[in-house]
């Protein structure tokens, strides 16, 4: 799908993008920083989704589980069950929840395939959402959201660093984003990544060659779940709230759309998709009142599907080398 690009060009683009992101809060207002944080969170989520979808060829309709449940785990640790705001505890509980649920859902899903698997993930997502809404033991607060989930700032002597709101959270999210991007790039180049691609291309052949694909599918689910958990946690910190909309199946469908829109299996595609959707949504809703921004986003989905086969990235990567060639 992607044409080979000049390594120098790719390196220059990457470096300038990273520099731009690193220096952004210096010349942007808090609102734009907030939006970019939001876009970075969705980028992490989309990268997690694409690991399973674009790279392993598994369509999931249940990623709301791996995004929302870790956020609820944070809500329980900080508020409803433990009332403990230790940032290391909070983050590791969220990560563990994502990895564990990823592996568990992966195990259940490894018994079916294709559209059937997608529907299994979907039914599971519905069950988790209903579980949160039914408020078992008073730990999820049902329809009400859990508020006040941010860990306090770090204090060294008389210097206080707040990593969980505003600019601090921006840099924390950016750090996680770069880590995830690099991690997925390395993973895809590794032997595990090759097995993932092989499962995507032809699982039957792997099976008939005597490979057991099940552990790899579970691994892909677990990693995707763990990375989604990072996105869910950052979202919980960003708004300082964990709400039932985070486990709603529609957020899982949205991340699928973002990935398809940007270009599945292209590493940068899902990131582009996340930025395009977040900024389209924000600008359309500030320009057009009364919920009519939905027309713009709906129209965008239709236009991209009809005119940009393979997503935005496929078009860009076929356009870019031509732009910079003399």
């Amino acid at each position, binding site marked *: 799908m992607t044409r080979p690009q000049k390594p120098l060009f790719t390196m220059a683009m990457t470096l300038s993008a990273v520099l731009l992101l690193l220096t952004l809060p210096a010349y942007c207002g808090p609102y734009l920083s907030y939006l970019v944080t939001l876009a970075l969170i969705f980028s992490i989520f989309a990268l997690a989704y694409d690991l399973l979808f674009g790279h392993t060829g598994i369509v999931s309709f249940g990623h709301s589980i791996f995004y929302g449940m870790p956020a609820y785990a944070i809500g329980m640790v900080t508020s409803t069950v433990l009332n403990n705001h230790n940032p290391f505890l909070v983050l590791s509980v969220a990560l563990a929840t994502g990895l564990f649920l990823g592996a568990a859902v992966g195990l259940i899903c490894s018994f079916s395939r*294709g559209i059937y698997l997608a529907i299994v993930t979907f039914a599971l997502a519905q069950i988790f959402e*209903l579980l949160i809404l039914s408020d078992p033991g008073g730990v999820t607060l049902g329809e009400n959201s859990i508020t006040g989930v941010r860990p306090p700032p770090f204090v060294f002597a008389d210097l206080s660093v707040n990593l969980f709101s505003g600019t601090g959270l921006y840099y924390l999210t950016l750090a996680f984003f770069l880590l995830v991007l690099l991690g997925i790039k390395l993973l895809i180049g590794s032997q595990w990544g090759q097995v993932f691609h092989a499962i995507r291309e032809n699982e039957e052949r792997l099976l008939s060659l005597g490979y057991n694909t099940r552990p790899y599918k579970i691994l892909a689910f677990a990693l995707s779940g763990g990375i989604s958990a990072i996105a869910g946690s950052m979202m919980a910190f960003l708004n300082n709230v964990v709400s039932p909309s985070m486990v709603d*199946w529609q957020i899982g469908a949205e991340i699928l759309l973002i990935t398809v829109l940007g270009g599945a299996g292209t590493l940068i595609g899902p990131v582009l998709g996340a930025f395009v959707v977040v900024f389209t949504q924000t600008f359309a809703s500030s320009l057009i009142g009364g919920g009519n921004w939905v027309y713009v986003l709906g*129209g965008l989905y*239709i236009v991209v599907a*009809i005119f940009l086969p393979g997503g935005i990235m496929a078009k860009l990567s076929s356009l870019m080398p031509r732009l910079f060639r003399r």
Partner: protein
Amino acid sequence: MLNVLITQCLNGITIGLIFALVALGLTIVLGLMGVLNFAHGSFYMLGGYITYFVFSSVGNYWLGLLAAVLVCGLVGLLLFATIVRPLTKRSPLEALLALVGVSMIFQQAARTIWGAEPKLLPIPFGNVHFQGLGVDFSYPVYFLVAMAISAVVLAAMSLLFRHTDLGIRCLAAIQDHEIASAMGVNVDRISAIMFMIGMATAGLAGGLAGPMFSVYPNMGIELIGMMFVIAIVGGMGSIGGTVIAATTIAMTKSISSIFISGNVSDILAFTVLLIILLIRPRGIMGIASVMD
């Protein structure tokens, strides 16, 4: 207790058959074209609104129902020609992307035209009273009529699939596109007809459900998730399986709602569907199809 149980059973059957009407089109379109039609819920909603619109301007509910079927069928054909057919051949997932866009626009359009608050349709006919054999309860006649209409349409579809040339060609195309095409089946034409029928039945279901649950912009999107699960659990291209899956879920919901809260009964319903799907990976009566 017995009275409540019987009432809930009747509710379960009525709602189950309406669910089956909605899921029917979904499963045929999925089997034939390999695309999860996300806009399906919008046609259910559109059917409800057309019925409401005709009822509020002419005053006849049944005329509204007829208009809903016709308008949904025509809009369905238009959608098929402009978006579904060109995109499904290229990539079913990009078709899904476009269909989500269509569904968002439909929903917002309904909100713009008719407003966000639910529109109430009066329930036609009165109640019928059952007494004797140890039971004593009254039940709205309209629910029984809706049950009968759904059953007749489902039976007609089932006959269409078993005994007409069109239906048999359609089943052949669901099982294997290429071989069916090679044997002279015009898959494009069959897809167009089936998409239109699917949207018309979704519109009918929306019109029938209108007096029961009222008509509101989110009625489609709230239902579509459960419909995806029913369509798959029933089995691709199987009307019998779809009816079994739909009534199972509706009965589980309505009977368990006597004893437990709504959310928990929904959890139970989804768990039942999930277990069926794990035991029978191709659905209750699924056949090998293009989706394998």
